């Protein structure tokens, strides 16, 4: 599996955010997208899953499922955690694993992996920001999808949880997945490629 972008351009609200962006990520590889605030890191990730229109250039996925769109084969972990405060931790995860199409989702295992199994019955309204983020990450573990798009995945996580996240990412890469992550800090993955946005301007 290989995700390639050629000469991508992004235009939002009448403003050119970036142009001429290209990259290529293969199975088992990670790409760290870096750049200053407003350089278009989030827009690039959203563009890959199809939530932002491609203003120019093209995106190719070799070796993916031709029946599915890019978004349907990808996990998108955005700034928002997509949790309902009135539902419990396990209900939130169960909903996403059912909706995103896991045949036999291992919700319990995913909750244990992010260290939230003791809070499974608690309404998500009572979670801290870091716990909410960990519950979102559990979604990536419960449902297997080959492409992970992570937008500032480590924000709000403490040091231990950041190391655990790096562990999840290494396991995903070892299983043949690929990762695009927008981040300011270190990814914690050896040999990650780097894409710098806004450098030319």
């Amino acid at each position, binding site marked *: 599996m290989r995700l390639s972008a050629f000469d991508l351009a992004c235009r939002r609200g009448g403003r050119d955010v970036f142009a001429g962006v290209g990259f290529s990520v293969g199975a088992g590889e990670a790409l760290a997208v870096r750049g200053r605030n407003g350089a278009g890191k989030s827009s690039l990730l959203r563009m890959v899953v199809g939530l932002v229109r491609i203003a120019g250039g093209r995106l190719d996925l070799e070796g993916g499922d031709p029946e599915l769109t890019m978004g349907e084969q990808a996990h998108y972990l955005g700034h928002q955690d997509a949790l309902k405060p009135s539902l419990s931790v396990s*209900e939130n995860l169960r909903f*996403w694993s059912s*909706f995103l199409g896991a045949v036999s989702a291992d919700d319990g295992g995913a909750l244990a992996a992010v260290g939230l199994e003791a809070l499974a019955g608690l309404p998500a309204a009572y979670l801290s920001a870091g716990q909410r983020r960990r519950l979102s990450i559990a979604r990536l573990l419960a449902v297997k999808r080959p492409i992970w798009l992570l937008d500032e995945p480590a924000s709000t996580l403490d040091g231990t949880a950041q190391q655990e996240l790096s562990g999840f990412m290494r396991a995903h890469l070892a299983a043949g997945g690929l990762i695009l992550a927008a981040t300011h800090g270190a990814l914690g993955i050896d040999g990650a490629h780097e894409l710098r946005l806004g450098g030319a301007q």
Partner: protein
Amino acid sequence: MSPLTAILVRDLRIAMRVGGGALMGVLFFLVVVTLTPMALGPDLTLLQRIGPAILWLAALLASLLALDRLFAADHKDGSLDLILLGRAPLELVVAVKALAHWLTTGVPLIIAAPLIGLLLNLDAGAEAALVLTFLVGTPALTFIGLIGAAIAVTLRRGGLLLAVLVLPLAVPVLIFGVAAANAAVAGPVPFGTPFTILCGLTLASLVVGPFAAATALRQEIE
């Protein structure tokens, strides 16, 4: 659980829990209808004559109450992005969300209507006709409102725009709903004539609503 069942169960659960607003619509409906005889005075003939119209107007306004949160809540917390990445067709997801909304706001109205009809001096025949028009007509209100909810999804105070967009579209449903209920009481048209048109309006809204709403959502999420 299939993706669509998952959406239905989730939306029903959220509506039933604290702050979900499942009962707000029906409470509003009861308050508005209760106020009418107080404002008009105890003129039983007048109340009987305008009763179906009052009930339909109150139901129309009540069904708009929680509608602005149908997609706006999912948009605000990022759920809508992930829903677009699911493998279930957006049109069906939108229709299931509307179904969940109708089950939690429309059905309570249908149950409350015959009870509150007593306040407006409706007799048994009129109440039966009214319940029948509610049963057929309230899904149309929800599915027409769906379009407005999708268009107003990114606006912070979309409720006002929603009302302005949706109320004119709901006029035919209101006209034929009230006409059918009145025909059952007073004639001269047989009940079936306006009622059949009401059924037609509902069927059309069930088809058009999800497609229009899904198109609007795809445009808005950028």
